[in-house]
């Protein structure tokens, strides 16, 4: 058996020790980890770049749509405002009390032996109540009856169009003066009527037709 002598054992030991150097091993591990981290970072950076491209595409789409949307929103707000304002104005228009039909009815109620000297009307509670004071003169053998006829006719006529109609005498007094009607001397009475009614439901719209005749003065 041949004798085998290792004359380089010290050098071999040193070489083995160099290979097992922890700093060297640590640096290698760190290098490997660093490489992995760089790869992971680059992968993430690539993904981010992709997302950035998507974002710029979406931003481009939005920049094309945005002016139209803003205009549409503005127009919608404007239209809603117009609709609501028109609704309120129409409510105001429909809620008005029309005096012309009332005057027409009043003129129909005044007979030849009556004269109205004053009409004073007021709309209250935003058109829910109308108060009219009517003053005038009635002539006849029974002037008070003539005034009462006017009151009843007025009650009947106004009742056809309005609600809660009340026609009441405030004053009714005989006058000393006589008036000549159709050649006969007639006694006279002065009256004041208070008329109240609610036109809100039954009030008719104003018509272009005028009162057929005026009776406030002879």
């Amino acid at each position, binding site marked *: 058996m041949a004798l085998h002598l290792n004359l380089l054992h010290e050098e071999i030991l040193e070489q083995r020790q160099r290979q097992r*150097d*922890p*700093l060297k091993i*640590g640096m290698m*591990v*760190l290098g490997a980890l*660093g490489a992995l981290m760089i790869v*992971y*970072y680059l992968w*993430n950076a690539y*993904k981010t770049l992709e*997302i950035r491209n*998507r*974002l710029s595409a*979406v931003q481009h*789409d*939005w920049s094309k*749509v945005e002016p*139209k*949307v803003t205009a*549409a*929103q503005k*127009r*919608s707000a404007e*239209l809603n405002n*117009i*609709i*609501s*304002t*028109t*609704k309120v*104005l129409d409510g*105001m*228009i429909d809620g*008005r*009390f029309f*005096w*012309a039909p009332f*005057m*027409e009815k009043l003129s129909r109620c005044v007979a030849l032996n009556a*004269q109205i000297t*004053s*009409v*004073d*009307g*007021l*709309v209250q509670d935003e*058109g829910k109540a109308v108060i009219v004071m009517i003053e005038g003169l009635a002539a006849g053998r029974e002037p008070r009856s003539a005034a009462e006829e006017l009151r009843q006719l007025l009650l009947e006529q106004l009742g056809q169009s309005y609600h809660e109609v009340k026609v009441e005498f405030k004053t009714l007094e005989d006058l000393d003066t006589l008036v000549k009607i159709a050649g006969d001397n007639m006694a006279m009475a002065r009256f004041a009527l208070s008329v109240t009614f609610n036109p809100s439901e039954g009030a008719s719209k*104003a*018509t*272009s*037709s*005028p*009162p*057929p*005749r*005026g009776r*406030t*003065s*002879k």
Partner: protein
Amino acid sequence: MKKLNLTKDQIQKLSLSTIGFVVLLYVYFSFFLGPLNKSRDSMLASINDLQRKVAGSKNEMTKASNLEKQASTATTRFAALKALSPEGAPIAWFPPRIKVFFANQQIDKATARLENSSVYKDADLSGWMRYSWFLDLPQTDFSTTGLAIAALENSEPLLSITHLNIHAIGDDPQFQQVSINATTAIMKR
């Protein structure tokens, strides 16, 4: 298992490597990966937000288009009501308009005086003002007045008569003096 015999020098080197590793991790996450992820998240949020807006905008435009069709009557009506309020201060154009109106109804000497003006409490009428006018017709007759008031109520839809006073003129009983209090809604210009 073979026991790992480390010299003092090797332990120092190993500690140094560990510290280097920790520093590397910190730098990597704090200065590289962290900001990148943050930027990506914010971009994703922006994309979602924009996509939601784009999707919503289609609805918005459809709604506006439908509303445009539905509101055609209202817009026409509104334009007609708006046209009743000419440019300029109402005190400048309303009295002459009323004077011409009554003159066309065979009532001369009509005068209109502004009593007051106020804003509407209703938010929908924020662009409109209420004007109160006193209209004086010193000499007319009941029939003509009735005709004129009917025409006025029909031609001025935004005018509302709140008080009407008709009384005979003492010396000339065939004529009456008429005074009218009316309010109008006039658009702010």
